[in-house]
């Protein structure tokens, strides 16, 4: 199997995804991602030159997938905040954000 994904790639993707991987997990990720990309490589052998890319199949249902601009009831704030990790009852609170 050709090695297209390197350890550096995995580290970069993990950083972007805010994941912390142990070196053991990194090794496994390199192996798994290469296996996945190897399979994609295999599919690339198909000629898709004249086929529109399709990211999802909703379009096939044929109905207009738009919603009228009518207001629906929002959730109650106390119910929302019940699921918040930290709150003053009004806002979500998160550890201080400095960099944007």
């Amino acid at each position: 199997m050709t090695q297209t994904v390197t350890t550096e790639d995995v580290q970069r993707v993990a950083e972007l995804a805010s994941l912390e991987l142990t070196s053991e997990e990194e090794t496994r990720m390199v192996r798994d991602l290469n296996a996945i990309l190897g399979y994609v490589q295999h599919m690339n052998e198909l000629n898709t030159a004249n086929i529109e890319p399709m990211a999802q199949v909703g379009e096939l249902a044929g109905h207009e997938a738009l919603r009228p601009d009518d207001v629906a009831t929002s959730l109650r704030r106390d119910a929302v905040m019940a699921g918040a990790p930290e709150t003053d009852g009004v806002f979500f609170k998160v550890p201080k954000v400095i960099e944007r």
Partner: protein
Amino acid sequence: MSTTASVAPELLAKYEPVIGLEVHVQLLTQTKAFCGCSNKFGAPPNTLVCPVCLGLPGALPVLNKRAVEFAVLAARALNCEIRERSIFARKNYFYPDLPKGYQISQFDKPIAEHGWIDVDTPNGEKRIGITRLHMEEDAGKSIHDGFPDSATRTYVDLNRCGTPLIEIVSEPDIRTPDEAYEYLTKLKEILLYTGVSDCNMEEGSLRCDANVSVRPRGQEKFGTKAEVKNVNSFRFIRAALEYEIERQVEVIEGGGRVVQETRLWNANEGRTYSMRSKEQAHDYRYFPEPDLPPLIVTADKQAAILQDMPELPEARRKRMISEYEITAQDAQTLTATRAFADQFEAAAKAAKSPKRVANLVQSELTMRLKAANLELEQSPITMKGIAQAADLAEEGKLSSKQLKQLFDTAFERNEDFGIVYEREKPQQISDPAAIEKLIDEVIAGNPKQVEQYRAGKKTVAAFFVGQVMKLSKGQANPSLLNELVAKKLDA
């Protein structure tokens, strides 16, 4: 460092700035882009949220039809080509006010592209290209200051999260901060006319980021650009660009290199600051949004939507100039907002002289609004009131002095012209005999001027008109007075 020129003008002149603008505009829909939560500014924090805009697992977005219609209207008003089939994409990044961990946006197939706006420059009209106009959703709001534990905590309000936006990206065609200002002014005016947004910068419904670089004049290749964010008025954009251009010239002239980075504008200090973001930090890993089908807006659909397109400001000014015989300057004032232009046209059509209505707006009204620090929409005198005043003046039932007094009263008491006029109905002396009596009095008192007049100096008539008007306390019917003075003096 300060905003005042620290770089010598002759050094600055060696470089040509290249500016491109990205403008985000919130759409005036009733509901959010992908859920039925109300799209309203100023509600109590976190009360306009639901599983979709909170990004709860399993919740699915469904696109707001009205938002699509607004995007199409705006795109066409900005001379864009509209794509029949556009694709939503996920823009991935982590920030607490973005609960899903991605923003639904459009990437390689936006709803519209290839538009333009013509702006006025000192060298005449210039066309600024619009690269693209795409649909996306807004993020929530992070509040970094003002709470007892703000040193360690950021507060998040997700009401704004999911508000429908259009992002309008210009070509790097802008060459001066003034052109940027003109572009934004025109853009805002056009969008206000289409009614798709209120473009209120204080409330954040119109926001602008600027990409700016400099290059030695004559060089074709662009310099390295910086992106300036956090600028919340057109005036500040101009100032931020001026600052940034000088900063970059200074860096280059000092033998340094401009770094590609994002810089924040600090309005209090009048300068930009580097955000010092980690190298390579931005990689949004766009991919097609699997929860939304392609957006299809067929030619028929577009035509139906575009039936709601109002007459746009440029075209309207041209028409009004020829229709009402007003000046370009008049037309500019009168079309400041669509509502005001509508009111003017309704009033002008009903009035005896549209030109006089325009004149009153341009002189008496504008002057008083400026003095009272009011916007047109806040004027105590409505266009109907202006038209009424114009008619009374046109018919000679109101002297210009009386009109001015009534306008003053209207502004003092915050009442419309009609109300003031009905109450104070200035007495106008329209009885020829009474006026003649006053004229006789003035003639008797000024034999020298009478002599001058009769010796051929006809302009002295104005002196008599003025004196009689004064004697009548401004109440003599002006046209009758003019006529009678001439008659008496010629007798």
